[in-house]
């Protein structure tokens, strides 16, 4: 099957094909998840290099442990669980686990802004807003921070988040509302 047709398959179908030896299916999974994972893990690791290392480690583990994946779980949940565990292990090894911050090393903004066709003034405002949003996310309790990241940054479904965090879908939604409420208070002046 060529790469074009692989794009039509679900993650679980790709994983099954990969388990049967099709390495193109593995490449397609990497393509689907590399940026999503990078985006998510960056906020754990705080710098690109470490985050990219973790993402690569994740895909190497997926490659090595393909037989361990069972169809009862979603592929996305499995991959995110591997990545988050690796990130948490790396952070606890480096002693940074309790000083989680998403504002980048030494306050540097190591992230991209989607809207790149705006005027300079708007850029400045956007950078300022992004700083505030990021530090606001950073200051959230972990149970709220994780959910707002998974939903609004990684764009995962409620069900995927519930499976990943092993909490009911209703709890995901109630915490998400609460996280956004806290963020709204922080950026109220910018969203009027």
């Amino acid at each position: 099957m060529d790469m074009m047709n692989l794009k039509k398959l679900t993650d679980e179908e790709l994983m099954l094909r990969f388990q049967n030896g099709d390495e193109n299916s593995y490449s397609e999974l990497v393509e689907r998840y590399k940026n999503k994972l990078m985006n998510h893990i960056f906020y754990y690791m705080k710098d690109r290099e470490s985050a990219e290392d973790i993402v690569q480690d994740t895909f190497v583990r997926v490659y090595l442990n393909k037989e361990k994946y069972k169809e009862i779980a979603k592929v996305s949940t499995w991959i995110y669980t591997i990545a988050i565990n690796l990130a948490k292990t790396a952070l606890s090894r480096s002693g940074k686990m309790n000083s989680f911050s998403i504002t980048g090393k030494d306050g540097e903004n190591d992230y991209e802004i989607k809207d790149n066709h705006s005027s300079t003034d708007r850029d400045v405002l956007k950078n300022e807003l992004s700083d505030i949003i990021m530090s606001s996310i950073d200051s959230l309790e972990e149970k709220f921070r994780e959910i707002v990241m998974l939903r609004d940054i990684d764009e995962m479904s409620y069900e995927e988040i519930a499976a990943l965090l092993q909490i009911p879908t209703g709890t995901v939604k109630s915490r998400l509302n609460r996280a956004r409420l806290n963020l709204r208070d922080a950026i109220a002046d910018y969203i009027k």
Partner: protein
Amino acid sequence: MEKCSRLEEMIRREELEYDVVTEAASIEISDHIRVCPDCGKFVSDLKKTSDSVRSLLKVSVSDSFDSALRSRLNSVRNKQKKERSVATPLYSKIFYYVSGVAAIFIAFFYISSLGLFDNNKTGTMPSLNSEMSLASENPVSNDKSAIDSLENMSKSVQDDENLRLRVSTGE
């Protein structure tokens, strides 16, 4: 007039198990939201907050990500291959050792079953041994043939002696 915070309070208490941004129409107080400007604005603010988070934060992998991953996978594959090649001779050795021991046992039992090592058992080897055992089974006929042979030998010696005497006497 006091500002309405009915929806906000529910959210602070984490009572609302719906996403207000995407499922406002489903929640129990959806009728209230439609007519309450404060709660309507509150939902709108949460939506803007969510949109701000979605639009501002994106980090992608570097351009070298794919090639770096490929090289890591190649080294993993090579390592696996090396481990397999190191492991194979060990398995082979065990296999050969077990096979050798098994072969020795089979050969021993086979030979034992033929009676080669049993002195009391006779008549099973179809070779020189069988002739020997057949001979030992019939000692009378053996003795008789031996006596005949000895008689023939002494007769032959006697004939030679007579011939020698005749020559010496000039007959």
